[in-house]
Every structure is written in structure tokens, then in C-alpha cells.
């Protein structure tokens, strides 16, 4: 656009000179975020609650609680209250459901609505980037534009991206997506009641959710099964059927997505930070630092990953770390310790190459400190290689976590986890209750395929000539 390339004009001034595109974009954003403001504040409140819980003596616990209550009261667009599906048949029509529709339809509308909202937000963010590029960026072209354009022409990568987004939305909006809530159906079923139409008495009756669950488990044949997309005897709709204990499978699956993705992303983030930091140090100082890191990382890589995970989970079984978030924190720590050598290995070569460049010498002779050189002049060039490797490794972590939970060592109850669901339904795979094991497994396959495809896309976009030799070790993981 602009022919002026003076770098002194700050972004604020560039926006002020041509405010219209930015204003339109901001207005749309305000509407999109405004309708969900309550939910965002609720997340803030929940985080504050966790922080207060961790601090000794729980300072200000009551203040946080009142704050949470206030946030909960703010209505949000994408929530269970706007499109409720937990109603019942009163003999002539549905009560307490959205527009008097059947629970199944009401639930389907809410799911569609959640995804429509999520994609609208993403479209808005993408549009913001395009507006910035067109109207406000100082230069017409940057190398990053090529990366973005290459990714846009990569259909396999885009397919992966859509799948990844689908699962991320599932994890983020888990409470709104389920036909019932965690609290009501899984954590405290005996504290809640459900109303239903009884054929025997021809009237609406109420029963504790826990007791209703007992009567709607999926354990094989005939009336002991609630298949996907059906109602149970208490008028509750189950998109994926029920687990053996009668708890809703879909609710558990969406919350399982939350924990799986969290573990994978956080563990890979920590491992990436360690790997990147060490790569900078070893590339900058070389010699002894490099040799020591080679030794440590080779030793960790020589350990069988799954066996180490099993051993560490057993060793830490009765400690307080194991209790945090039903084991997720410990698993994240173990994965970061086990995975950083792989990341460091994959970026060691590029980091060494960068450290040989002339501009590093120049920066040094200008008197920049080693940290500055590493951070400003080396890390940005290596970061993309790390991104490639990390995105290709996420699937392996998800599979390993599911595998460990399947063995009974990973995430413990009550937090739902895909591997535990598979173990739960294992003996019923050949019976009409096949859905319990099949659905979580298919979802793992789908999300791992999506992550790998997305990783391929990122790799081809960032570095079209990338060496493909290294990635096999990244994926799989052996579970």
C-alpha cells in the first residue's frame, strides 16, 4: 500500500491516520467478545480461585467467591442457559427446553451455535490480520507472508488445522457442549434431581441423577444399553450413549479432550522452552557445554520412554504432586523432562548454523551481552524448526497419556480421560455397548491425524526443503 517506509511512525499513529478499517474490526470484535464477556470473566474467576487455593492460608477466599458468584450471574450468549436442553416430556410437550424442542434437537442447535461462534471469532481474528497487513503494516511484504501463503495453498495442512480447531473448540467450550454438566452428571450425581415422564404412572416424576445413572448404564445386551443418539429411560439424551456406569459419554469425551490437549500443549511448551534455551547455550558457547548436553540428552533418549513414564508414575503414586489435577501436573512434568532432549536434538543443527553467521559476530562486537545475542539474533531463526518438531510430537503425547490412563496409571478419576473410557468399555466391544471403547479411540485417531497433518502443513510452509528424516521418532511414542 504505502510508499513510505519510515519506521518511526508508531502503530497508534498509523491507525489514527486511517481509522475506518480498524474501527469496523474493533466494533465487530466488541460485539463478539461482549456476548461472551461473562464466560471470560468466569474463567478469570476460576483461575483466581485456583491461585487462592494454592496460596497458604487461602487469603481473600471469600472475596474471590463473591467475585465468582457475580461473574456467574452475567448472561453469556454461548451457554447452557440460552439454549437449554435438559427438559422433560410432560405428556403433551417438552418443558424447560429451548423453544419446546426435543432435548436432542436443542442440544444439536447449541453445539452448532458454539461452533458457529468459535469460527466467527477465528474469522474475525484472521480478518484483523488481513486488515493489518493491508492498511497498517509498514512494509508491503515480509518473509512471513510467504509462510502464510504457502500454508494457505496446503490443503492437507488446512484439513489438519480444521480438525485441530474442532478439538480445541471442544476443549475450550466443554462445559457448554455436553448435554449435561460435569458437576451434575459425573462429580455429584446424588446432589441433583432429574424430572422425567414415567410411562407407568403417566405423570412427571423426579429421581436423583445418581439413581437415574444406575438405571441407564451400558453393559451389553438389551435394556442394559444406551446407544449413541438415543434417550435413556429418564428422558435424557445421550449423543454418544452412556458409559458402563450410566454417566453421559459425550460429556466425559469433551472434558477428556480438555485434559488431553492441555497436557500435550503444556508439556510440549515446557520441553520446547528447555530445548530452545539449551540449544541457544550450546550453540553459543559450544565445546564443553555442548558435550555435556549431548551426554545428558543421549542418556535420557536411551531410556525407553513408556517404561520411564510407568516407573515415575509408580514412584510418585502417593505424593502430593500426584494429586494435583488428578495427576495431570505430574504427567506434564514427566513428559517435559523426557521430551526436551528430542527437541534439543532437532534444533541443535540449525542453532549451530545460526551461531556461525556474520551477524552474530557483528552483534558481539557491538558489545551485546550473550543473552541479548541469543534472544534477539539466534532464537528467532531456530524457533520455526522447533515449532515444526513440536507440532509433530503433540499426537505422540496424546496417545501416550491415553495409553497410561488405559493401564490405570495416568489421569485418575474423577477427571474423564479417553484412555480410561476405552478401558471402561473394553469387555463390551463385541456387545451392543461397543460405543464406549470405539468412540474415544476414533477421536484419538482423528485428533492425532489432524495434528500430524497440521504439523506437515507447518513444516512445508516454514521450510519447503525441510529434511523429513527426524519426524518418525517424534510421532507415535510407542503407546
Amino acid at each position, binding site marked *: 500500500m504505502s510508499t513510505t517506509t519510515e519506521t518511526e511512525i508508531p502503530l497508534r499513529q498509523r491507525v489514527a491516520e486511517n481509522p475506518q478499517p480498524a474501527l469496523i474490526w474493533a466494533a465487530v470484535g466488541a460485539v463478539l467478545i461482549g456476548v461472551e464477556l461473562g464466560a471470560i470473566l468466569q474463567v478469570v474467576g476460576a483461575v483466581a480461585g485456583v491461585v487462592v487455593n494454592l496460596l497458604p492460608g487461602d487469603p481473600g477466599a471469600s472475596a474471590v467467591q463473591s467475585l465468582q458468584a457475580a461473574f456467574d450471574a452475567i448472561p453469556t450468549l454461548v451457554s447452557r442457559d440460552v439454549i437449554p436442553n435438559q427438559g422433560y416430556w410432560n405428556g403433551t410437550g417438552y418443558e424447560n427446553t429451548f423453544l419446546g424442542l426435543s432435548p436432542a434437537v436443542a442440544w444439536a442447535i447449541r453445539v452448532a451455535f458454539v461452533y458457529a461462534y468459535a469460527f466467527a471469532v477465528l474469522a474475525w481474528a484472521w480478518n484483523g490480520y488481513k486488515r493489518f497487513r493491508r492498511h497498517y503494516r509498514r512494509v508491503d511484504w515480509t518473509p512471513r507472508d510467504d509462510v502464510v501463503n504457502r500454508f494457505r495453498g496446503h490443503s492437507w495442512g488446512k484439513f489438519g488445522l480444521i480438525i485441530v480447531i474442532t478439538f480445541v473448540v471442544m476443549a475450550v467450550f466443554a462445559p457448554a457442549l455436553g448435554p449435561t454438566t460435569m458437576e451434575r452428571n459425573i462429580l455429584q450425581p446424588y446432589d441433583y434431581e432429574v424430572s422425567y415422564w414415567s410411562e407407568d404412572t403417566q405423570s412427571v416424576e423426579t429421581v436423583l441423577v445418581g439413581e437415574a445413572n444406575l438405571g441407564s448404564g451400558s453393559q451389553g445386551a438389551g435394556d442394559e444399553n444406551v446407544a449413541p443418539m438415543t434417550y435413556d429411560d429418564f428422558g435424557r439424551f445421550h449423543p454418544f450413549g452412556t458409559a458402563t456406569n450410566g454417566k453421559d459419554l459425550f460429556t466425559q469425551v469433551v472434558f477428556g479432550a480438555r485434559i488431553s490437549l492441555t497436557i500435550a500443549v503444556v508439556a510440549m511448551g515446557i520441553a520446547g522452552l528447555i530445548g530452545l534455551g539449551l540449544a541457544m547455550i550450546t550453540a553459543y558457547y559450544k565445546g564443553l557445554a555442548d558435550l555435556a548436553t549431548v551426554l545428558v540428552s543421549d542418556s535420557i533418549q536411551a531410556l525407553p520412554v513408556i517404561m520411564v513414564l510407568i516407573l515415575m508414575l509408580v514412584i510418585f503414586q502417593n505424593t502430593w504432586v500426584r494429586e494435583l489435577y488428578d495427576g495431570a501436573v505430574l504427567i506434564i512434568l514427566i513428559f517435559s523432562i523426557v521430551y526436551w532432549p528430542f527437541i534439543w536434538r532437532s534444533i541443535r543443527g540449525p542453532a549451530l548454523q545460526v551461531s556461525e553467521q556474520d551477524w552474530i559476530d557483528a552483534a558481539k562486537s557491538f558489545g551485546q551481552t550473550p543473552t541479548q545475542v541469543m534472544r534477539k539474533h539466534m532464537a528467532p531463526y531456530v524457533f520455526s524448526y522447533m515449532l515444526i518438531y513440536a507440532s509433530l510430537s503433540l499426537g505422540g503425547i496424546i496417545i501416550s497419556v491415553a495409553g497410561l490412563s488405559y493401564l490405570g496409571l495416568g489421569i485418575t478419576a474423577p477427571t474423564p480421560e479417553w484412555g480410561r473410557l476405552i478401558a471402561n468399555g473394553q469387555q463390551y466391544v463385541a456387545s451392543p455397548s461397543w460405543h464406549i471403547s470405539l468412540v474415544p479411540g476414533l477421536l484419538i485417531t482423528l485428533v492425532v491425524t489432524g495434528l500430524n497433518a497440521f504439523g506437515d502443513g507447518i513444516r512445508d510452509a516454514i521450510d519447503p526443503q525441510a529434511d*523429513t528424516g527426524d519426524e518418525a521418532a517424534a510421532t507415535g511414542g510407542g503407546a
Partner: protein
Amino acid sequence: MSRWQYFLRRVLMSIPVVIFGTTITFALIRLGPLDPVSAILGTQYNPQAAEQIRTNLGLNQPLWSQYLDFMYDLFTFQLGQSWVIAPGTTAYELIEIYAPRTIWLGFWSVVIALFVGIPLGFYAGLNPNTPSDYAASFGGIVWRAMPNFWLAIMLVTALSQLGTWTNGLFTWQTWIVRTNVVTPPALGFFQSPVEQFLADPGGWTESFIRATKQIAPAALVLGSASMGNEMRIGRTAVLETINSNYVETARAKGVSGRSLVWKHIFRNALIPLVPIITGEAFLLLGGSVFVETVFAINGLGWLFFNAAINGDLPLIGTLMFIFILILVGTNILQDFLYTIIDPRVGYDG
């Protein structure tokens, strides 16, 4: 640096790696929050027994002396014994019982993966961007993305239900030889195979086929990840080789199609496959825990898992050491293969 000097350096590097890896294991077992003695005794804890085991394992010694003992025993292959899952049985006996099943499983999973993955990958690479290439590539990617333990559960179910689905036309259990779907393989025929074969060729062949059939589904699952990797890398390698200058040259000077594929493309495409094939050792050891659990094959993975959940820490230490040796050995093998196959090794780093 010559190729063999490079190789020698890699072998020397592996010594500190084994020592370091074993040290990490020692640190986990002896310094972790789980006390080995209370793990061994579990609910039947009493001070006298605890004291006895403590003396027996040398846990009363200062830590550095414990460490030296631990390392010395392992590196002189005094592997100790089991304390919980088979009290009093030496680690040697346990490994002798359990290892053959895992080796049998590992052997077939490598073979199946190689003989399915590589041909499919090469086929896809020689016919790029055709429907069959897309089908093979996509299939390989999805196949690789499936969790082993889940795939194993599904396969077990499918095999046991085959009779019902085909109305009794085909049942896995009675196909060729009678076997159960979920069973440890009977490997008795391996003891003095030559004499047994000479004494009863038909019977020996039948038990060989039976053991192979018993292991085949588990091997297929265990090899799934490597099969997908081999296919993928094989395809890329062939594509890269096909478009390289020397293949162009060979084609221009009139080398026949068959000789072009086998001599010029196949051999060079094998190089990037070497780390994938040796890397299988990692996938196999880890995956064996899951696959052996689902298929009820009591091999090394199963032994390790049970030793772990029952708190048999001395046995775990020993098994971990064995696994480290296996993995480091495979890495050396990989370097050895590289040194033989790829003349460029050692020239640039």
C-alpha cells in the same frame, strides 16, 4: 575422519550414555519418594522383615556405597532377584522365561511392518499423485495415528467375532491351526529345534505355524506405527531419488527400467529408512507393555508393568538396565549400518 574412526567414536560415546542412563534409574528408584522396602512389603509391613530386606538390599549403607554396589552389580551382570511378583526367583530365570515371547513378538512385528510398509511406500513413490498413492498414503497416516492399545482391543474383538459375522464360514480360531485369539505363544519348539525337527518334521512345522499365528495379530498392531513411518519415508525417499540427477543420467544412458528401480532407486532410498527400522526398537519396547497386556502375552513388557505396579523396585532396576543396553545396542547397530551403506558418513559431522 575416516568412517570407521567415526563409528568407533560413536561406540565410545555410548559407554557414558549407559552409565548415565543407569544412574538416572538408580536415582529414581533409591532417591524417589517411594521406599523400596515398604513397596516390597506392601500391606504386610512389619519392622523386622523390613530390617531384614533393608540389610539384604544394602539399603543401610551410605548412599555413595549403595550407588557403587548398584552399578557394580549391574555392570558385572549380577542382576539380583525379584522380591514381589516371583519372590526369590533370580532376574536371569525371569528373563529366560519372559524374553523369548517378547523377542518372538518383536521379530514378527518388524518383519510384518517391513514387508508391508516398504513395498507400499515404494509403490506409492513410484506412482506419485495417483488415486492408489493417495489411498496408500492416507491409510498409512491414519494407521499410524491409531493408539496401539485401542487397535489391539478392536482387533481382538474383530477376530473373535469373525465367526459370527460370516455366519461360521470363517473363524480365526480354527483357521489353519486351532488357537485362541488372546494367548501367549507356545514356544516350546525352540528348545533344541534341530533335533525336534528331525524327530517329527510335521509336528514341529505345525507348532511353528501355531506360534506364528498366535503372535500375528499382536505383531500387526505393534508394528503399526513403524509400518506407517516406513511407508511414508519410503515414499518420500523414492520420490527424492527418482527426481535426482543421477537417476536422470542413468535413464539417459539407457539403463533398463527394472535395473533403474532396483539398482539406482531402491538402494539409495533405503538409506533414510535405516533409522526408522532401528528406531523401531524404541516403539517395540514401549508398545510391548500395551500390546502384551491386551493380548495376554506375558513377555518382558508385561513383566515390567507388573513389577512396576506391584512395587518390585529391585527387579525394575534390572529390567531398566537391560532395556537401556538393548536400546544403546540398537543405536550402535544403526551407526554400523550407516557406516556400511552410506559412504558419506563421517565427512560432514
